[in-house]
C-alpha cells in the first residue's frame, strides 16, 4: 500500500509562506545529510498535519499543521534549504 505522496503535495501549503516554489528547492536532511529536492520527500497526508520525511532515512524534515486562522510550519528536520534567486 502506498501510504505517502511525493513532496509536490506541499506546494500549496508552502506557497502561503514562501514567495517561490520551494518544492523545486534542494534541501539537506538534518538526519542523514542527504541533499535532494523537497519534491522528492515522502509526504504523509493521512495525518493531523502534513508530514514530510526524508526519502533516504525517514527522518521528519517538515510538518505543516492547519490550525484554522494559523498555519504552523516546522522545518526542524532540515539543516538548510537552497533558494535560487
Amino acid at each position, binding site marked *: 500500500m502506498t*501510504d*505517502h505522496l511525493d513532496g509536490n503535495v506541499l506546494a500549496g501549503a508552502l506557497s502561503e509562506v514562501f514567495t517561490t516554489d520551494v518544492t523545486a528547492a534542494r534541501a539537506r536532511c538534518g538526519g542523514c545529510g542527504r541533499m535532494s529536492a523537497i519534491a522528492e520527500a515522502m509526504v*504523509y*497526508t493521512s495525518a493531523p498535519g502534513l508530514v514530510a520525511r526524508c526519502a533516504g532515512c525517514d527522518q*521528519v524534515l517538515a510538518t505543516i499543521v492547519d490550525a484554522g486562522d494559523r498555519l504552523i510550519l516546522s522545518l526542524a528536520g532540515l539543516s538548510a534549504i537552497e533558494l535560487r534567486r
Partner: protein
Amino acid sequence: MTAATAGGTAEKFARVTARFGTHPCDVRSYAVPTVNRGRSTGVPVARIGADMSFATRGFSGRRREADTRLPPGQTLVQDWPVLSAGPTPQVDTADWELTLQDETGTDHRWSWDELLALGVEDVTVDIHCVTHWTRLDMAWRGVSLDKLFEDVESEHEFVMAHSYGGYTANLPLEDLLDGKAWIATEADGAPLTPEHGGPARLLVPHLYFWKSAKWIRGLTMMPDNDAGFWEQYGYHLYGDPWKEERYW
C-alpha cells in the same frame, strides 16, 4: 474556540482539502449525513420513506442522545479512518516488548504474554480524533495501565509514550490511572491490525485520539510535560476534546 456547526466543519474540510489535498479522514467520513446512522440510530434505512413519522420521531430522539456525546466540532462516523504520520511498523508479538522507565532508571518490562497475563478487560468507549471525527461505543480489549503502574514508584507527574517507528505523545500520569487508559490489543472484536496500531496501542479515550499512541513500546516517566510528536508541531499539550484543545 466556539463549537463548530456541522456546516462549519464541512467548510473547514473544504478549505483544508483545497489547501492540502486529500484530507486525512477521507471524504467518506465527512459525506455521511448526521441523521442516518444505521447502528447508532437503530432505524433501518429502508423504513425512512415508508414511515416518515416514525423515522422522524426516532431520529430526533436518538440524535439528541448522540449530540450530547459529540464534543464540539466533531462529526459522527461509522468507519475507522486510518491516520499515520509515517511508515507503518510491522511488529510481531514474539518480538514485542513494553518498557516502563521511571526516574531511577529502572525498567519494568513485559513481553506480549506477560502483558496479557496481567488481565485483559473489555471496554466500550467513544473516541474523538482531532481531525473532527468521533466514533461512539467502540469495543476494545486491553490491559489497564493501573496494572502496569501497580509496582512503579515515581515522583514524576508526566509520561512520554514511545512507539515503534519513533512516534511520541506526552500525557499527565493522572490521565493514565484510575481506569482511564489501557494498552489495547483488540478493537471491533479483532486483534489490532498494524494500520490501526497493532499489535498494541495506547488507548486514552478521554483525550483526542493522537494521544492514544499506535505501536506502543514504552512509557517513560518525566518531571516536566515535555512535548511529544504532534505537540511539538502545533497540537495542544493536553488535548481535551470537550474543550476543543486542538492546537497550541
